[in-house]
């Protein structure tokens, strides 16, 4: 009891310290209500501590510190991701909207508005979404104070509403230009029944970045999400995507992470309509002790005949650390559930570490759920086979490393994006950073 009281005190203190430097933005009554409720949830939960169940593998202290640790800018010698793609660009520099670099936010089949503007309106569709999915605690006792803090204090972000099948993707481009930036963005995406939209996210965003995205996919709608987090070594990020899926709808998300001293990517998806499908995948590559990557995924099946698939792969080298926490929860009545989860890491040396916590919790009797987690080295047999055919050691290693990541990359449906990200990975391996 003493220990628990001490932890509660520590959390209350660090929460107070952090909140000291933050001011809640102004807005319409509904937005202010969402923000004050989020703040109340946050104060109630307290910011995360290493001793919290879902933070034991990832030290949150630098994410919750009052001041963001500085992050050196990275001179990226690669072109920006998805450069050749015809898309609607929405640019944020260190978390601040850059109108000049952004496209016109008018697009057929879409309604796009900045969160800072939407929250000023007395009536706005985002009212039904902003802070709403984040606040739903479909998995009972798992607190998400980082997300609540984001809802309470995010000044900006985008609200995207799709009411048709939209071909042209929306690309949120996050530039990092200040060493000390501490950015908070919150996005709301509403895909109306039968509509479809693709959201691309690219770039490092800030020295420290907090991002929450809430996505509501209507019946038979489809949401596609492909993201490449920037290569800046010292950047830190907490991101969370919340999804709620209607009947027969689809939510597919892929994330590529190369470098980053600390990345925590959370995915919380609820399958609430029958026959909905979600695929969440990620490939992360890190080199050195200054790489820590955490994927934390919660999928809740709360309808009949839904499919969920999680594929997460990590390549870790020179003391890099990878974390995977993934849970499939099948609620009573969610029969004919098809749940799949795989998390694997390729450890290129003895110094690197992979920490995995796969969980299944099933309250229905007619379900098929499987999960697997492995970590291993490059196969010596395969390496020798390639070398015996004349392929040099480093090239053979890279080929096998890309082969290891292929299962995750295969989750990207669009070939243009898949090829772009595949090349980025190949380049990363060749450069080794």
């Amino acid at each position, binding site marked *: 009891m003493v220990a628990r009281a001490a932890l509660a005190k520590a959390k209350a203190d660090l929460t107070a310290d952090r909140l000291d430097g933050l001011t809640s933005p102004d807005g319409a009554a509904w937005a202010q209500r969402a923000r004050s409720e989020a703040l109340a949830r946050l104060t109630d939960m307290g910011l995360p501590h290493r001793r919290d169940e879902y933070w034991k593998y990832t030290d949150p202290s630098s994410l919750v510190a009052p001041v963001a640790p500085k992050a050196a800018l990275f001179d990226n010698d690669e072109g920006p991701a998805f450069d050749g793609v015809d898309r609607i660009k929405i640019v944020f520099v260190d978390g601040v909207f850059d109108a000049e670099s952004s496209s016109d936010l008018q697009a057929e089949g879409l309604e796009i508005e900045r969160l800072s503007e939407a929250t000023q309106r007395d009536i706005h569709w985002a009212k039904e979404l902003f802070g709403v999915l984040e606040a739903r605690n479909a998995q009972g006792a798992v607190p998400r104070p980082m997300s609540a803090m984001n809802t309470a204090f995010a000044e900006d972000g985008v609200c995207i509403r799709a009411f048709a099948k939209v071909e042209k993707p929306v690309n949120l481009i996050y530039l990092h230009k200040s060493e000390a930036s501490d950015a908070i963005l919150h996005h709301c995406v509403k895909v109306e029944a039968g509509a479809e939209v693709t959201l691309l996210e690219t770039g490092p965003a800030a020295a420290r970045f907090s991002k929450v995205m809430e996505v509501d996919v209507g019946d038979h709608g489809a949401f596609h999400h492909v993201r490449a987090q920037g290569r800046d070594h010292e950047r830190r990020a907490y991101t969370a995507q919340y999804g709620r899926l209607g009947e027969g709808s689809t939510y597919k998300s892929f994330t590529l992470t190369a470098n980053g001293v600390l990345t925590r990517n959370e995915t919380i998806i609820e399958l609430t309509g029958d026959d909905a499908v979600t695929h969440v995948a990620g490939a992360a590559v890190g080199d050195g002790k200054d790489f820590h990557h955490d994927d934390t995924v919660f999928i809740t099946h709360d309808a009949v005949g839904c499919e969920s698939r999680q594929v997460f792969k990590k390549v870790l080298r020179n003391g890099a650390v990878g974390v995977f926490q993934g849970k499939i929860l099948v609620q009573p009545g969610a029969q004919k559930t098809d749940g799949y989860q795989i998390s694997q890491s390729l450890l290129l040396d003895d110094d690197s570490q992979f920490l995995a916590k796969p969980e299944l919790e099933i309250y229905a009797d007619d379900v098929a759920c499987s999960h697997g987690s492995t970590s291993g080295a490059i196969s010596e047999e395969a390496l*020798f086979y390639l*070398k*015996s055919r004349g392929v040099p050691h480093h*090239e053979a290693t890279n080929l096998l490393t*890309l082969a290891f*990541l292929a299962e995750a990359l295969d989750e990207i449906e669009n070939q243009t994006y898949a090829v772009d990200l595949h090349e980025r990975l190949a380049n990363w391996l060749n450069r080794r950073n």
Partner: protein
Amino acid sequence: MLEIKNLHVKLEEEDKQILKGVDLTVEAGKVHAIMGPNGSGKSTLSYVLSGKDGYEVTDGAATLGGEDILEMEPEERAAAGLFLAFQYPVEIPGVGNMTFLRTAVNAQRKARGEEELSAADFLKVVREKAKTLKIDAEMLKRPVNVGFSGGEKKRNEILQMAMLEPKMCILDETDSGLDVDAMKLVAEGVNALRDEGRGFLVITHYQRLLDHIKPDVVHIMSNGRIIKTGGPELALEVEHNGYGDLLSEAV
């Protein structure tokens, strides 16, 4: 072409001598066969020559075209013209067979200072060679050896050999796990590559492969040594009488 002198090899992990003085010379244009009972050191010889980890050469030498190969990395040996057709070809999930072949061909060309083959040229050559080995487009697209039958794996080995055009080919029990038709197909593939400038070392338990790949010289290996060398008739002798007589002769 390939010259092996007094080769002594032990397992790195344990103090166990496997090869105890192998002497063997394969001339260009010739096919040599090595036969011998299980555990005689045949496969070890093929692995040591191609540079697999886990073996320690304690004495002797091996040269290819006059170059010492034992000090080379496996990929350098390959570039120098050595090829091993594996007894158990390795499955590599995630790497397409075509990508694998092209990477190998171009890596060797690069190592030899030759220009890399363009995608179009490569495709043309590989299709042609695959066709004679009855390897279809589907097999070329699939990941290397993944889900291949025994026969498909061995045909894939021969396809690699045909693409890489090595000077010295070692076939390690290429007949194992093959039915007669598959063995014929593989043998035809090998025979098509027989050439004045190319040497072959065919390792096998059984004479039947040698009905299809006719050897010039046959060696009998036992307990880490070549105990007898002769013409193709030696293989027939083994077929009829087993290894027993030869082994007792050697003692």
